[in-house]
């Protein structure tokens, strides 16, 4: 088997830009922001990302400038380390290992050698404490930062829940305050005791839980944002009774963040309204607005000279705004759509990933720069933020091979009677963008399930065909027709409607040469001739509907691969019209590489995703990576490389021409925000190929070989197997069953008791002892058993079409053995 660890998963983009408040450098020339595990340095003037500072092993949760050296930056991460960076050069200076998750970071000018951080309290869930971390002075780069002293228990986890106030000259020292969801506490640092605390309750008037807190830079005034949209400015809080507050109210929903200007005369607030509000002199009557920022504001930060402020939005965008509330520029990361319905599509022209962006838009996302290239408005309708409103959204996207045509399907969220639109866009070279060419209302009577272009580079534009499949049990073929008007424009119209036994059409796929179209109808795969639109043959692998189908490419173009709901991956031979092999695998994503014959299948089993790469002509996978990542992989795509890679090509031929990217979702329970990350597989470069490793790899390979040799076919109690065989027989649709004369012998055979049963069982024991290393034996056996049943059954079906000679049968057995060994790795 393949040596593990040689390939690793790299988080390569799409990470949230809003892990923490962004920070302006002291001269306001640079903006430092968090992007997943990295901290990025962005030049405000040139609009370029200058540096990428990576080193944290988990999400960065807070960044703060070093108050004693403005060229240095502290960052903290969930991996339990605090790093000090020289952000001008992008090099880490020091790493302090704290050991527990760090959720927020604060620095103070007066605290020379310590920073403050929020950590989860040991032994208690959802309880957090503010600690001061003493940063030991040492010579080395990696230092321990385990001297923690707890400042306050029960704080909120978000960095917005704590603010440090002005330093007071009086002996009481500086104060800081915290607000958590339930209470506001004011603590004078030197006394270390809470002198003012206020709890909020859900009153009849509204929900006045705190959402954020900031301190006035010059005066003793605290501004708090509340869940009901109010901002309260607290004063006189040194007195338990005489404290007082005033209220500013414009937001209609929760105030997400607040920021004071450097003199404290202006207060900025933002929330879900996507409007930045500037309050002057704490007066509720004088306020300015910057509306239409696009999406809810999550964090606001101010530069130290007060010239610029930046807002971090929930759609992964950073907007930089001038002091006179003029929008200046923005950095757009990957927009996390609520539901990526379109899947991951690669734009052949730009090699950008194309997927759902903001509602009704298609975003073109460049993985290289981790930025959105542009956003194409497909729905072209005003999006209204309102819960429960039925919106139209983009559900399917397909590009033609050259990227000149783009087909999109949008539907309204109505479940029963969707309002469908199929749009065809032509790429206009002059304006460098897609232009709407044809709009087809209600192309199908029900939801469109799949759509593909006929990818034929050599045949030119005339052969361009679009196929759509729908739940209205038909697939439709759309072709270009020349308009009658003198300008000779083209438009699209329906050419052929196909159906199969009134089953819902679920997937469609063209063969590489475009001569065959495969359409899956529930449990059946049908193959059609694309010239005459005749039904050529059907394949079926009950039970379970077909989830994905694809044709093999290049040398494997005679195969068609299908994945079913009940966890089978089947490969049919188009020449023999027979099942070539099948395997039990709960395939979530089936993605062929457009430039090679390799196909990637990603399975989801017991809370981990695994990657299998195989060639259709061999049932043994080329590569298996178990436990690819903990999250469920939603989508994957092969992105062609600009130049074929040579270094890793021997070991990983399937990565030579393309890179595999996949998209996961991580649901953080506290905030209910979907974080989506792009990952890619990269060859581990730090592991050099040494003779030893080669030897090790060889040895392993040999061992695997032995395993396969030893792992003789496990033959099961035929009686046990008989009843499912009969059942399968009865369940298989009659039209795919061969004549009864064929079935008879097989049926009788299935009732016979095998002679080699005993010996096989012994061998099976051996197999279990030798080859299974970390697997749960009983489970494994179950799976194997199932697999065996199915393969044998498939074999039956295979046998029906053509009589097998003894040698062929032997070969088939061999395949079964191989199957078994691969499955055992599951």
């Amino acid at each position: 088997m393949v040596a593990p660890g040689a390939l690793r998963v790299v988080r390569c983009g799409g990470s949230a830009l809003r892990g923490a408040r962004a920070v302006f450098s002291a001269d306001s020339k640079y903006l430092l922001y968090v992007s997943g595990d990295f901290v990025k340095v962005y030049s405000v003037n040139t609009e370029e990302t200058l540096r990428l500072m990576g080193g944290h092993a988990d999400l960065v949760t807070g960044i703060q400038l070093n108050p004693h050296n403005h060229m240095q930056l502290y960052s903290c991460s969930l991996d339990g380390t605090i790093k000090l960076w020289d952000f001008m050069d992008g090099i880490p200076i020091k790493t302090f290992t704290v050991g527990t998750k760090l959720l927020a970071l604060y620095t103070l000018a007066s605290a020379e050698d310590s920073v403050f951080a929020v950590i989860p309290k040991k032994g208690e869930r959802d309880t957090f404490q503010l600690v001061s971390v003493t940063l030991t002075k040492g010579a080395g780069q990696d230092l321990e930062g385990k001297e923690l002293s707890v400042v306050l228990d029960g704080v909120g986890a978000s960095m917005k829940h704590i603010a440090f106030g002005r330093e007071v000259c009086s002996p009481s020292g500086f104060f800081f305050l915290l607000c958590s969801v339930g209470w506001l506490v004011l603590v004078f640092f030197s006394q270390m005791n809470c002198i003012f605390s206020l709890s909020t309750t859900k009153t009849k008037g509204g929900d006045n839980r705190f959402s954020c807190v900031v301190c006035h830079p010059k005066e003793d005034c605290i501004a708090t944002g509340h869940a009901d949209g109010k901002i309260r400015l607290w004063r006189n809080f040194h007195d338990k009774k005489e404290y007082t507050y005033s209220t500013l109210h414009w937001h209609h929903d929760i105030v997400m963040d607040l920021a004071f200007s450097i003199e404290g005369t202006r207060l900025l607030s933002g929330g879900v309204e996507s409007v930045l509000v500037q309050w002057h002199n704490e007066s509720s009557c004088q306020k300015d607005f910057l509306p239409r920022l696009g999406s809810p504001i999550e964090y606001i930060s101010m530069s130290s000279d007060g010239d610029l402020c930046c807002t971090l939005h929930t759609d992964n965008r950073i907007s930089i705004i001038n002091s006179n509330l003029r929008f200046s520029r923005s950095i757009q990361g990957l927009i996390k759509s609520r539901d990526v319905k379109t899947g991951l599509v690669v734009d052949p022209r730009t090699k950008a990933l194309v997927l759902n962006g903001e509602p009704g838009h298609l975003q073109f996302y460049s993985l290289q720069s981790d930025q959105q290239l542009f956003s194409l408005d497909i729905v072209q309708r005003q999006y209204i933020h309102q819960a429960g409103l039925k919106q139209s959204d983009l559900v399917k996207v397909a590009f033609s091979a050259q990227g000149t045509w783009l087909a999109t399907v949008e539907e309204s969220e109505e479940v029963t009677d969707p309002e469908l639109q199929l749009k065809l866009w032509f790429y206009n070279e002059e304006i460098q963008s897609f232009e709407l060419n044809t709009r087809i209302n209600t192309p199908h009577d029900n939801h469109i399930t799949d759509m593909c272009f006929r990818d034929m580079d050599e045949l030119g534009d005339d052969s361009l065909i679009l196929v759509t499949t729908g739940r209205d049990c038909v697939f439709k073929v759309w072709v270009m027709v020349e308009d009658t008007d003198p300008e000779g424009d083209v438009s699209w119209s329906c050419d052929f409607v196909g159906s199969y036994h009134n089953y819902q059409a679920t997937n469609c796929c063209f063969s590489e040469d475009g001569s065959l179209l495969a359409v899956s109808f529930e449990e059946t795969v049908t193959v059609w001739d694309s010239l005459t639109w005749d039904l050529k043959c059907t394949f079926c692998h009950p039970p379970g509907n077909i989830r994905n189908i694809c044709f093999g490419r290049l040398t494997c173009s005679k195969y068609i691969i299908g994945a079913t709901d009940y966890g089978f991956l089947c490969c049919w031979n188009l020449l023999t019209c027979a099942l070539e092999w099948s395997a039990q695998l709960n395939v979530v994503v089936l993605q062929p590489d457009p430039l090679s014959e390799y196909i990637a299948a990603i399975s989801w089993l017991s809370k981990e995703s695994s990657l299998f790469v195989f060639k259709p002509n061999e049932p043994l996978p080329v590569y298996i990576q178990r436990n690819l990542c903990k999250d469920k992989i939603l989508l994957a795509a092969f992105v062609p490389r600009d130049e074929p890679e040579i270094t890793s090509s021997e070991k990983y031929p399937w990565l030579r021409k393309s890179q595999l990217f996949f998209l996961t979702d991580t649901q953080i329970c506290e905030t209910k925000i979907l974080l989506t990350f792009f990952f890619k597989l990269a060859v581990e470069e730090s592991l050099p190929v040494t003779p030893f490793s080669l030897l090790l790899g060889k040895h392993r390979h040999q061992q695997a070989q032995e395993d396969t040799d030893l792992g003789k076919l496990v033959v099961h109690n035929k009686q046990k197997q008989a009843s499912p065989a009969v059942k399968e027989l009865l369940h298989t649709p009659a039209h795919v069953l061969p004549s009864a004369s064929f079935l008879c012998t097989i049926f009788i055979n299935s009732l016979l008791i095998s002679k080699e049963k005993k010996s096989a069982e012994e061998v099976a024991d051996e197999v279990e002892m030798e080859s299974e290393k970390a697997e749960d034996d009983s489970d494994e056996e179950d799976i194997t058993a199932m697999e065996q049943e199915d393969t044998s059954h498939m074999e039956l079906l295979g046998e029906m079409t053509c009589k097998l000679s003894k040698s062929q049968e032997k070969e088939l057995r061999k395949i079964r053995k191989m199957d078994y060994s691969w499955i055992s790795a599951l």
Partner: protein
Amino acid sequence: MGEFEVHRVRFFGLVPAGVRCLACHPRGSRLALARTDGAVEVYNFAANYFQEKVIPGHELRTVESLCWAAGDRLFGAGLSGDITEYDLSGLSAARGVDGGGGPIWSMVANSTGTQLAIGCEDGSVKIFQVVPGGIQFERNLDRRKGRVLCLSWHPSDTHIVAGSIDFFRVIDVTSGQTVQRIMVNHHVEKAKRECVVWAISLLSSGTVVSADSFGRVQFWDWEQGTLAESHTVSTSAALSLAVSEKEDSIIVGTSTGATYQLQLLPVTLGGQEKRWVRTKPFQFHSHDVRAVAHSPTALISGGLDAQLVIRPLMEKIQKKSYDAALRKFTFPHRRLVSCARKARLLLFQFSQYLELWRLGSTEETGKDGEVLPLCQMPEHLVQLKSKGPEHIYCSCVSPCGTWVGYSTASRFHLYRVHCDGDGVSLRKVPKVPKLLPPAYQLQFSADSDSLFVASARGSVHVFQLLEPGGCKHLHTLRPPSGCSEAVYLLAPSADGHWLAAVSGDWVSAVVPSVHCPLLQHHCTVPTYNCAVSALAIHPSTNNLVIAYSDQQLLEFSIPEKQYTSWSRAVQSRGLHRAWLERDSPITHITFNPKNPSHILLHDTYLLCVLDKSLPLPDDSTLLMNQSTLKQLPETARKRQLHAFKICKKFQPLLFMDLLDENCLVVVERPIMDFKTQLPLPVQQKKFGT
């Protein structure tokens, strides 16, 4: 079938007049309030903000400004151009002194209360000396063009600041010269609208605070003539302003009905520098807040929606008590309805007319809570307009429904009502004896053959009513020792032997009634330090039940001249806390002849049947337990029963009386009905509408 058949009356179209101005007594114990119809009311803070005194209005006497001076003397001035002193013991307005400068917009007393300054239409500011028995013109200060809308004395009495349209000026009192004239709109380029300075205040530090029609509260240094701070509190006009005695807090009323507090707060903790900060907004009113006052512990505001709101400042209140809750008063603390039980008539008293209604009737019966259809609709019998500009003090209809009496400040009127079939005729009783001071309360005896008239100095006149239409003054009952205050409540006993009278100096006197041969004063109920809000004599036991404004209930046996044992038990045990912290005082007490142990009482928000035979509730039990009782089984219900059976179904309740054993009449005035009769408030955009 329920216990009572209830006539739910909603046709009393009372619209209380809006609050025009407020004046807090310098020592903070009383609050004087003037309404837009010219009525002046005095509230006593100590007695749970009881509306202690009411001086009905006068058509020609609008009150623009009220102030307390020289101790407890109350002065009012208005657009008639007169300065009027109010006789608080006689509950009447004394003759006014002409200010001599046209309509008077504002009047303030200096810190010692010896001088009054008035601001007039012609732009003059005049100073009057308060002398015993009246006021005396002292001098004119510098006159400038433009009406003087507001005035304020410097606490040291050396300067007066006078606000006009677009400017205010500071006048030196000794020289009478204007020393500073500041344009409030100077820094606004080409201001199109004029800016009215509605309220102004001169602080001891020399800071002038002005509230203007642009919704701004501005702080000026008057010596330099510079603007120190400006707070735009509202998009509409800021109408009123009051400063606390310590000068660290200001309340501002605006025309949108919102009030705002501004506080002088240190910029940094423990720092010396202080700044005015707008803090809490309050939205209690729907209409203009024309008057605000700042007591040491509360913010008081009165609006054109007739509400008086007392919002306590929690930080100034040491312990939780009655004062610690928000109080809102809309309706008067006295009865405006009288009922003829036998004839089933209701008499409603408005400021200048009376309405006589006959109740509807039904022949059907139904279950508890069911609405019965009427077979005869309630009928508006007659509207009786009072002549002259004076407003009505009191009115009464006799139990038999044939006599109606009312009194204004100067005259007492008695009418004979003849109901023959559908027609109603009203005939004035000729030769009614003239009474010099006004009658404060009228009460017919139960058999309708005599009329008691409460009068000044604790005296009660007794008239004999003669058929077919005449009356004769029998005699005047006087308290044994001299009493200066007017009698404001009367309660005759059902058998006609006793009459209880309450006078303003809080003595409840009991005098034997007409038929007793000696007609002498019988006894005086021990003095209590709160005003009586209602009283009644029990028909069978002749016990006098008294409700005080601090929600205490006492029962006094007239024959035995002492408190009854039940009353003593109540006093020793104490009433339920929820009962004591109620909003409004008991305004009427009546008894159920069917069940002598029942006392029926009501205030604005609840109707209570007090069952003396049941145990009193303690603080741990629920006071309003009727709804929970309904869900309990019979046996458990018995254990949970206590003396107070409270019904909150009818709100706000202006009157309740028992017509007969099982028939009750309640008069409601739903707030929404009354709000629709007010002028439209300032249009405000509300989010989501």
